[in-house]
């Protein structure tokens, strides 16, 4: 049947696109290792990695820089970008809103408030942990407050896409106001710390940073992929989804909890990194459409690639590099507008 073959051909093209982007991401990862104060070229980095894997290390200093300093940053950039873009794709499809992203529910502002409180109060909050872990734990805990509010709300009232967005915005305003209050009363040193957390950075990443967010993201990401059909059906609207055997309210609650959890797991380490969650899925839609089975992995790969490249640019800008959150937004905004214009021309959405 010609029609069916056309459909299968399209599916094969979509998987090929995802594969090519994944390979590009790996190449970009090795490329990212060559960027920094200590000059190394692409081939050298590749050789250092091979030498490290084969246990034949010739230059200990270069090996340490590439494997222990730059590689975890690159790997974490991919994880963070993938998580934010995957979360964005899920939120947009489920809430049927092109402006939704993982931060829509106030996850990032919650994390910022948690971290700010930890910075202001120091280790008085949790005396058994060191400062950086207190910030991470507080940021993680506070970033899950909005989803907890939505879950509590759902016991009393029905939850719709619009209500979720409105609750998220309301939470964002409350959290931002409290952060402002803390900043007004904070000392200059504390203010600088809150500010640096606010703009988002990957510069502090080490191999110890990666296992927890990676583990949470893999579990949540796998469940979201397993739910791709119901996420897809949700795009038809809640009444239609209901009539096709999907409970819209339950689905929204389960999926936003998963998205919040994995976003909180990365944001609590990096601070707020904007635009990846919004732009990543839209770039993916431009190439492969909105069918969730392909959109979710494609968004994750594009998000990872985007943040990796943004991090490369952040690191070549200035002696100490700029925060990746700033670069991501500076590249992300024009790219987003370009995509909107391009997609309008292609009538990709109304």
């Amino acid at each position, binding site marked *: 049947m010609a029609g069916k073959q056309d459909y299968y051909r399209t599916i094969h093209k979509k998987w090929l696109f995802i594969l090519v982007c994944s390979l590009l991401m790996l190449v970009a990862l090795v490329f990212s290792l060559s960027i920094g104060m200590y000059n190394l070229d692409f081939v050298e980095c590749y050789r250092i990695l091979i030498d490290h894997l084969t246990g034949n290390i010739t230059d200990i200093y270069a090996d340490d820089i590439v494997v222990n300093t730059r590689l975890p940053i690159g790997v974490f950039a991919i994880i963070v970008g993938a998580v934010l873009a995957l979360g964005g794709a899920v939120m947009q*499809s489920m809430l*049927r809103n092109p402006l939704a992203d993982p931060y829509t529910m106030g996850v990032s502002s919650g994390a910022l408030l948690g971290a700010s409180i930890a910075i202001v109060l120091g280790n008085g909050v949790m005396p058994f942990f060191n400062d950086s872990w207190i910030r991470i734990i507080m940021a993680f805990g506070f970033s899950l407050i909005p989803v907890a509010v939505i879950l509590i709300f759902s016991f009393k009232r029905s939850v719709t896409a619009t209500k979720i967005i409105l609750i998220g915005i309301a939470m964002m305003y409350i959290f931002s106001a409290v952060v402002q209050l803390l900043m007004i009363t904070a000392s200059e040193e504390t203010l600088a710390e809150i500010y640096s957390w606010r703009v988002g950075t990957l510069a502090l990443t080490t191999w110890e940073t990666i296992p927890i967010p990676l583990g949470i993201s893999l579990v949540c990401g796998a469940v979201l992929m397993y739910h791709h059909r119901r996420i897809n059906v949700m795009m038809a609207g809640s009444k239609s989804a209901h*009539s096709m*055997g999907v409970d819209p309210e339950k689905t929204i609650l389960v999926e936003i909890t998963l998205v919040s959890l994995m976003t909180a797991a990365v944001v609590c380490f990096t601070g707020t990194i904007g635009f990846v969650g919004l732009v990543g899925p839209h770039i993916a839609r431009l190439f492969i459409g909105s*069918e969730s089975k392909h959109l979710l992995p494609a968004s994750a790969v594009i998000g990872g690639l985007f943040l990796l490249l943004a991090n490369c640019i952040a690191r070549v800008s200035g002696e100490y590099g700029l925060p990746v959150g700033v670069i991501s937004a500076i590249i992300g905004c024009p790219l987003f507008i370009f995509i909107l214009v391009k*997609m309008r021309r292609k009538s990709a959405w109304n």
Partner: protein
Amino acid sequence: MRLVIDGIEFGYSSVPVLKDITLDANGPQLLSIIGPNGVGKSTLIHCINRILSPTKGTVMIDGDMVNDISLKDLAKKVGYVPYSANDTFPLSVVDTVLMGRHPHATYKSLDKDLDIVYDTLRLLDIENLAMRNFNELSAGQHQKVMLARGLVQQPEILLLDEPTSNLDIKHQMEVTRILRDLSQEKDILVIMISHDLNIAAKYSDTMIMLFDGLIYAIGKPSEVITKENIKAVYDVDSEVIDSHGRPHLIMLDEEFDSRDTALPADTYAVKEKR
């Protein structure tokens, strides 16, 4: 298959919409629900597929209460074609229709599901749109795609909320005829809301006229479409003539018709430019 609605009531906030609806319908047949705006036509079909829960009364399908059937199993029995389609994001027609296979889908069923999707697209004469983006289509094409999505659920009851409202007269007739034929061929109870009384009367087996939250008239089209019922429910004067054994409504507006509305032959507000 048999649908039994027993004394259902429903209201939004404190405003009652359905007051006491009782109905016993067997398939296969095309059943049209008519009535003025706001009388509860959509609310009634939403109570059948559990989108809304009646505050009183029960809905049973083949002896099972709909509240006792899992949502996925209910979706295998009852399909729904909404009034308007959601097209926020780009999705191909095949992917849009494939959503309807969700209640039946397994991880190995794609090939079989695609066969059903393409058969349905062919049946509705829209196979040429298969790989087009849904949001590039006209409103009429949207309605046909939505109908295809409802049909691939392979339901025993198909609920349609004004399925021909955006179609031209040819396609209105074509789609309604397809619904009538499908009800017989596939043994489906098709329940359609319609504002086009003549199309509904031409193709329906049974008609239900709703008014003020109650069933005002029910029966064969000739029993429901009478000038007395139309006057009582719509407050419109009309003549009903017979067309091939079915009623055909001609609307009258005595006040307007009594005016001298004929335009002078040589004066037109707009002329064709040559």
